[in-house]
């Protein structure tokens, strides 16, 4: 299954009919409150019943994921970062060793090929920091097969997203 998460409209994107595109900034996604309910009270389910519980299972299931996001301080900007935080039900509370480091055990999360089209970086330092952040986060999301495409503008981000989708189709 393919999935596209984006924080901006991608009107020029030509997609196969069955590819879900979620405009994350238009979803009602409250910040995670850090209650750990999804680990210890209702395992696998977030206690906040807004739009996030319809999205994080799709993130877990997909085997190809395209994320289009603005950057903020070397990370995804707030709409996408909030969704990443609200995807905590995809993990268990329990900890395992992964590549020799402690990380949370995953639930039914499909190992995935992740492509990130990142725009809005102000300089090379921010790009390098984002690369490091995604490298760490990919260990906790089974997305270790990842590619980052940096765009200098929103228009270029859309163009790069189009190239990724065309490569999927072909």
């Amino acid at each position, binding site marked *: 299954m393919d999935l596209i998460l984006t924080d901006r409209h991608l009107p020029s994107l030509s997609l196969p009919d069955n590819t879900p595109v979620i405009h994350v900034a238009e979803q009602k996604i409250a*910040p*995670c*409150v*850090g*209650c*750990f309910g999804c*680990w*210890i*009270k209702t*395992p*696998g*389910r977030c206690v906040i019943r807004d739009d996030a*519980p319809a999205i*994080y*299972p799709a993130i*877990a299931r997909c085997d190809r994921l395209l994320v289009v996001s603005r950057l*903020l*301080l*070397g*990370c995804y900007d*707030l709409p996408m*970062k*909030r969704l*990443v*935080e609200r995807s*905590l*039900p*995809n993990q*268990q*509370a*329990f*900890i*395992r*060793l992964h590549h020799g*480091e*402690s*990380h949370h*055990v995953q*639930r*039914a*999360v499909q190992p995935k090929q992740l492509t990130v089209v990142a725009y809005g970086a*102000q300089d090379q*330092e*921010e790009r390098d*920091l984002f690369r*490091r*952040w995604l490298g*760490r*986060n990919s260990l*906790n999301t089974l997305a270790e097969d990842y590619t980052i495409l940096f765009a200098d503008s929103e228009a270029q981000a859309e163009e790069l997203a189009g190239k990724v989708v065309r490569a999927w189709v072909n």
Partner: protein
Amino acid sequence: MGKLMIVNGSPRAPKSNSKLYIQAFLSGWSGAYELYSLTQRRQEDCLASLEQCSDLLLVFPLYTDGLPSGLMAFLQALLAQPPSHPLRVHMAINCGFLEPSQNDVAVDMIRLFCKRGGHSFGACLRISCGEAFPTTPFMAIARRKLRKLASAIAKGRPVQLTASMPLTKRMFLRAAQRYWLGRGRSFGVSEEEMSTLEIEGP
């Protein structure tokens, strides 16, 4: 130095480990300070009060390998509405993993914030094993380091500190398992239920 603004960047500030770490920090702090929690929704008041502060201490958990989104929003607002003078920015970050180095990317995000806002990066404490830390006798280690952090900030020394439990990987995994099972039991949730692979049901 002037007044210190302490910001609790935890999304569950009133019940957070960050709150306990702030209390431990204050036991070693004798200067003037103000305390603000991001859950209080008084961001404008905090930004205005920073005009009277020389130093800012951010205390927060590592959140999905970076800064909690609430703290990111606060820093974004601070970049948009900066005080008329540069701040010295300090931090105490805690993560639930064994390795303090898992905090490093988030530390560099705060460094980038400082660079963007023209502020200077000061003292830093990286705490690991954070979730269970305050419930163990090892909290004395964290308390000692937090008092060291307080002393360093007061003296203007940009120290880099770490606090961790003296556990092997195997011991840490066992201790974490016990800790989380206990949290689950308090809601009547079994190990089998906590280990479900299902997300939002079958």
